């Protein structure tokens, strides 16, 4: 068994413009996903929008620079994640495919184990 991070990326503008019914549908989708795959889930959370993000970098002198916003400017922003356990990538993909991501998609990344 291996662990994977399922990262949910979404177009925030489109998401923000969604109506109440759509929002409920998404929440129901996440609840269903969680219930159906409880055995495989090791964690997961929704995130506040990228406008709530704070990024930290070091400048050339090594000084900490704190800025408003997400690390990278991309069309789709990270909106949430699940940490899952699966036998292999195919199983991880089958799980990740069930995650609601109406305004974007998901990325599946294997967790690195150091021994």
């Amino acid at each position, binding site marked *: 068994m291996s662990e994977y991070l399922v990262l949910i990326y979404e177009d925030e503008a489109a998401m923000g413009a969604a109506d109440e019914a759509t929002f409920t549908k998404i929440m129901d989708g996440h609840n269903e996903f969680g219930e159906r795959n409880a055995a495989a889930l090791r964690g997961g959370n929704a995130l506040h929008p990228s406008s709530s993000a704070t990024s930290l970098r070091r400048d050339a002198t090594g000084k900490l620079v704190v800025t408003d916003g997400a690390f990278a400017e991309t069309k789709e922003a990270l909106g949430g994640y699940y940490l899952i356990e699966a*036998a*292999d*990538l*195919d199983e991880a*993909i089958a799980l990740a495919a069930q995650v609601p991501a109406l305004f974007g998609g998901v990325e599946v990344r*294997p967790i*690195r184990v150091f021994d």
Partner: protein
Amino acid sequence: MEAAIADAHRHEWAFVVAATIRVTGDIDVAEECVQEAYSKALSAWPTSGIPAKPGAWLTTVARRKAIDHLRRLSTHQRILPAIVDANEDDSIPDVDGSLIGDDRLRLIFTCCHPALSPEAQVALTLRLLCGLSTSEVARAFLVSESTMAARLTRAKKKIATSHIPYQVPNAADLPSRVDAVLSVVHLVFTTGHTAPTGADLMRRDLVERSLDLCRMLRVLLPDDAGVTGLLALIVLTDARRTTRTGPQGELLLLSQQDRDQWDRAAIDEGVRLVRVSLSERPAGRFALMAAIATLHAQAPTWEATDWSEIVALYDLLLAAWPSPVVALNRAVAVGFAVGPEAGLSVLESLRVDPHLSSYSYYESARADFLRRLGRFDEARSAYQESLEHCANDVERAFLRERLTELPG
């Protein structure tokens, strides 16, 4: 003897590699063990003679080496002790037919996993299934050996770190996964049939490998209509191989090829296969492409070609596979079925597709329609545009010839 080893290499490589990966669980180690098995054959067979079942001999030797390798690993590194014990039994693999089939299928599906980039899928398939050396694969795609070696290493790393499983996909995923495999084999074929770059029109080694792969798939998945359709397509298209260039190595169009020189046995085989592949409803894209190839193969002359039927097949193909290249090929067919004006009009409607913006065949098709309509200045620009995106010397020579033939 050398021929026997080369033969064993070509026909048994995939089988031996696939069976060995099952022991090692690691592609690199398996490759080494298989390489060693072939070296052993080179030194042993001249004295002991070629074994009755070379594949079984090579697999037994490779797996023994793999087991030795696993034993040498310290206990905590040994991840699959169960598999080592199971393979203590050195029984000839031939006996259980299903085991043979499964191993090569496992390997094919692993090499063509959608999590790998298309280039990686093609490189791995040629290396692991066809047994091409890294330098041979590099040459086939006109990249440096180090570039190809890096590509293969990255692909194998992706398989290991993401834990791409060494198994045949489950029933639900099988159709899309088989389709992915067929895309890879088809790409190997088309790259070999009309090389995108270089001095030669064809790369025979790639065509032959695609044929080998497709025949292997037909043995492993005899009921798959897509596999049958692709084999039909390759066989029918390759039937024209000796007529595609003239005595000076110049490009010959379908309208100029000597149909008496087409491989009739191959065409007969292709036609039989197409019938089988079309029994699946709805017809898949490879079956439809093969059906179009059949219409060309069976037309006694260029003039006798049933273009309306071809357009009808393209309509079905476009519905099954909405690709801009298919749409372009359909436009060309419309140009012959109805006329250059109609063909040009379809082409214009495709102009917006970004995939066609640097596709040399788009402009050469446009140029041909314009030329036939007497719009020579526009044809000239289109041929020039096409040349800009064409990197194959034989095709470039053809386009330049067309340019010089234009009046004014």
